């Protein structure tokens, strides 16, 4: 049932708190693991989770279904907030590099397929990530989970910036290719 997330957002615009509760129940299990994965500290992740849903409630009127799914709307916001925070943490402490390394080492190579998979295309996107050449997957993971910018990735991998940019473009082209037919 597509569109029902959009319907909940529409009801939230009208001030429907129950719709918000349902919206939360539906999307928090998707968004929280991502935030937790980026920030690692549960307390930080809880703060950001609250901030993201609070903004969704307040900014519901700004959601435009023509510009993307509710999932993309929320996940993009969650990633931005989590990465803002991790960048601020990293500025405060350069020693953060070590935990960052652990975080990446802990990344599941194959995400597996049992948890809350609702549609075929999502499975395919994960599969597509697993199928990427490891150099491409690496840059995606450094940006997606560790919040590194392309310049930071280039420094970290000791690769020319141009190489990193090309890897990012190719990887995203592949991932988009998988999503395109269903949107």
């Amino acid at each position, binding site marked *: 049932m597509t569109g029902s997330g959009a319907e909940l957002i529409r009801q939230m615009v009208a001030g429907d*708190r129950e719709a918000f509760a349902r919206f939360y*129940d539906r999307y928090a299990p998707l968004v*929280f693991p991502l935030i937790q994965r980026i920030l690692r500290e549960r307390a930080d992740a809880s703060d950001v989770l609250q901030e993201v849903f609070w903004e969704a409630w307040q900014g519901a009127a700004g959601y435009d279904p023509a*510009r993307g799914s509710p999932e993309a709307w929320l996940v993009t916001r969650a990633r931005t907030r989590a990465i803002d925070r991790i960048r601020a943490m990293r500025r405060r402490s350069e020693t953060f590099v070590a935990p960052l390394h652990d975080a990446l080492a802990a990344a599941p190579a194959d*995400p597996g397929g049992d948890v809350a998979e609702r549609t075929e295309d999502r499975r395919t996107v994960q599969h597509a990530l697993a199928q990427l050449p490891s150099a491409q997957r690496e840059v995606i993971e450094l940006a997606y989970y560790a919040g590194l910018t392309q310049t930071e*990735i280039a420094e970290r991998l000791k690769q020319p910036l141009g190489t990193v940019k090309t890897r990012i473009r190719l990887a995203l082209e592949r991932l988009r290719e998988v999503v395109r037919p269903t949107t």
Partner: protein
Amino acid sequence: MNHEPFDTLAAAYALGALDGEELVEFEAHLAQECARCAVTLRESYEALAALARSAPPAVPPPEVKQALLSRIAAVAPTASPRRERGRGSLPWIAGAAAAAIVAAAFTGAFVAGHYEARLGQTARELTATRQRLEREIAALNDQLAAYRSAADLLRDPATRVVTLRGLGPSPGATGWVIWHQTVGGQLFVANLPPPPPSKTYELWTIGEGAPRPAGVFRVDAEGRATHRVEPVEGGKPVKVFAVTLEPEGGVPAPTGPMVLASAK
């Protein structure tokens, strides 16, 4: 014109990995409403959202939902619902009932909070009025100083006036920088909405190399701001002025969305 460089920038932008001058360049390109990049970004955000499912499972803490529901109930009391006309009334009643249950669970905290609020209210109102007047006088003085320095600057033939256009989240915003390469200048902003909580607006000067931070500034309730801009070290030229939304206190390199920028 060859669009390929923008395809590369769009991918990094969607990932949040674009930085420095390229971020400025790409946001200026986006401000021209490029349809091709809009499609690329939309599809990229969908693909990246689907990737969220590859994070290891974690159960959202239940207290977050409770905190959100009580926060919502506190902000929008049932006496003034933003009720939808017609068929919306039933879900709203159900919503109110759910909120009432949550509110009941938090009654202790709520009553204590409200009572304390009442007690201190009068005293706080008095203090607030005095502080507001002091702030207003200080703000007027600042503004006067800004206008004076702008007027002085404008007498110098080397001074130029740069217009900044609103982008992305704030298309209605405008800005002007009255700029002198060796003396610095003043930024004037209008119609810029106040930043969300724990965010601030930061000005950047872009010439050779990475964007340089040129200070954070506050926007008043009418969306106006004035901000003194120091000259770049060594009096180096500035090609572009840009304003981004950043974490409170500002950052050394831009990370947030661009809200205002001058043309190149």
